[in-house]
């Protein structure tokens, strides 16, 4: 495959809809907790927990477990690598969209 096409190869870890939603939400804030992510992405607790674990293992998010009052609270933020990867991913999607629109017109 040519170098140009390699640039359009999507990152499968990020492209999964649940993880893409989590990373997109986190890209517009400094940090958010588990409940907030559940509300904004609409994922179930189990799915969100599983996706966050994968994203943390890949070094895309930082997870901080803490107690707020007497309640456990999980706070999540994008790492620098996570910020770069989600920005690049959306850029790729935009380019693919433009490419498909150009192909249809031709």
């Amino acid at each position: 495959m040519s170098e140009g096409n390699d640039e359009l190869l999507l990152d499968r870890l990020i492209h999964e809809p649940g993880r893409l939603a989590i990373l997109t939400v986190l890209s517009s804030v400094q940090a958010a907790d588990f409940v907030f992510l559940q509300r904004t992405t609409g994922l179930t607790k189990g799915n969100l927990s599983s996706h966050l674990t994968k994203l943390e293992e890949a070094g895309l998010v930082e997870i901080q477990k803490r107690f707020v009052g007497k309640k456990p609270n999980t706070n999540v933020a994008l790492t620098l690598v996570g910020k770069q990867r989600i920005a690049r991913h959306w850029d790729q999607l935009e380019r693919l969209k433009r490419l498909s629109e150009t192909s249809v017109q031709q």
Partner: protein
Amino acid sequence: MERRDLESAAAHVTYLRGLLAIPLGGLFIITGLGNLGWGPLVHPWVFVASLLVLGAAWLGINRYYNDHYGRVTPSRGRQMRYHVASLILFAVGLVGGSLLDFSFDLPISAFAAVFALAMLAWFAICVGLRTRHLIILGSLLVAGLLPVWGSLPDRVSVAWLPIGVATIAAGIFDHRALVRAYGSARGLNPENSHVGG
């Protein structure tokens, strides 16, 4: 999945915690009633006790939002914009509007009108102006500009009352928008909502 919808929702949700406007609007109303010497509010301790009740209500409502809709730290740029807009526009509404009323013998309430414009600008900058804000704060603006305020002995204190009502109304509609977008508080069990739990 719409990128902009997700980003915008995450960025704005903090400012849709509309029930927090109830104690704030309550503060505006008791300020007006206190200045007018209404009922028990002529006693300073009643005013202070009311402030404490409103403060406790604010904390309780904030906790409700944190537990049921989650905590989020907005980006630094957005936080800065929020703080600067709040500081400048509240000062403009409070000082600018009341100074106009104190300085000129107008038949209108410049305080209510300027406060309405300041709140419209605040919503436009921090939350995004919606039809509900235009209707509620537009009504406040029109009420302030009606030439019926001239006979009132203390226009600024009276103006606090519709300002308080408008603040509460805008807050209730913002809360309804939050519930429509993210579901009711009962729709999510926040207990032990954390990774691995």
